């Protein structure tokens, strides 16, 4: 079971068919964390709209 952010990223990259070296993972990690934070913002912003269709 992946436990660290680095391991999570490595697992996601493998699943996407990317061949990443350990150095690649280190280089990608800050951008990936920033990306996840931005996506989280979008999810939070979309919540009220998503509930509109449940009624």
């Amino acid at each position, binding site marked *: 079971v992946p436990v660290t952010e680095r391991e999570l990223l490595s697992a996601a990259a493998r699943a996407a*068919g990317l061949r990443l070296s350990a150095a*690649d993972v280190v280089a990608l990690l800050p951008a*990936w964390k920033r990306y996840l934070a*931005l*996506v989280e913002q*979008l999810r939070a912003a979309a919540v009220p*709209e998503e509930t509109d269709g449940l009624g």
Partner: protein
Amino acid sequence: MGSAEPLTSAPLVQIASSLRRRRLSAVELVDAYTRRIAASAELQAFITPPDKRTRQEAQRAERRLARGERGALLGVPIAVKDLFATRALRTTVGSRILKDWVPRSDAAAVARLRAAGAIVFGKTNLHEFAYGVSTANPWWGIARNPHDSRRSPGGSSGGSAIAVVAGLCAGALGSDTGGSIRVPASLCGCVGLKPTFGAIPLNGTFPLGWSLDHAGPLTRTVDDAGVLLDVLSGGDAGRKSRRAPTRGLRVGVLKGSIVENLQPAVSRQVDAAAAALRRRGLRVREVAIPEMRWTVATQLVTLRAEASALHARWIRAQPRAYGADVRTRLQLGSLVAGADYVLAQRMRARIRAAMADLFHDIDVLLLPSTPITAPIVGERTVRWRSGAEPVDGALVRLTAPFNLTGLPALSVPFGEAAGLPVGMQVVGQWDDEARVLAVGRLLEAEAPTLTLPRKREREISR
């Protein structure tokens, strides 16, 4: 015919007119530009500079002019960003992967330039695959800002902006996916127009993000941008803009969180631009678009996914064929979940609707093109009171929203800060380029464009 050298930095409109009246030789003009390109090699503006075939094109143009033939751009040298396919002329897209690609036909935009008589005047440097805003190209050279070679020209159409500002061509063609025309125009001090999405056909243009890509001109004046827009789009917005009334137009000056972090000098120029438009009889007021706070995330998810879809095979098979920054972006994009892309498109629809609503109450929106002036090459972070921001993110913060929405947006030089140009952005309703250009022309008249430092001009014109 007069000497070509004094006209190398003249507006395109003046160059075209001088060629038509036979007061200027197309061959001498091409020779003068070629000398200037050789003298400014340090700027790394070109990947493929004009060669003897270009001179032959000029000779043909000269014969046509002598016969009295007419064309809006007959004999006018236009530099082309090296992601537009050019028949029998290498098109690298700023990459190593396509270093030997010689297309069999022209991109639609290039074909339109040629049909109007333009001379395709070399292929300009860009960020690798147009995927970045520094034009620090690992394969073709780190492009430099003509005002200060320690600084970045911006990108991805950095070479096109340099060529225009340094007087290495009469005008240039660029592309803009998150700000790639307007950012270098702002940092180098020229006019850059991203028209309405779809106004200029993109066939034969190497894509970056299909739903965000736009083609457009970089020029020394707003008039010049209008002339090139009409040729490239087949429309008449440029011509119309010259007689479009501006008195009484409603101008919204953008406020809100997205413009909170600006260099003080940039902020002062926004106030000066608003005051200038007020003096010219436009009705100026402050406006806010709360949905713009989602544009950074929406643009990032959309572009990462679209670019990685395009590069899916290469980034998996030969990741080392990319430079480090582009490789990281493409690898990250390969991890974007389909659901997140859909989420971003839903948010994009909300942003678009908010802007459509706003344009019921205003005619044009005014904001800076970039929150900062040209950064030092390699600088990674901008520090604000509220925290740090990546330079790349800051440079597109105010331009990318109009790639998401497809609204026409013009960057016009407006004053300077410590010897560096400041760019002001005028955004209009969809297909309303005429008004955007008309308001841009007012700003242009109020703030003369920053000229090159004398030392640089002496070096280039030697």
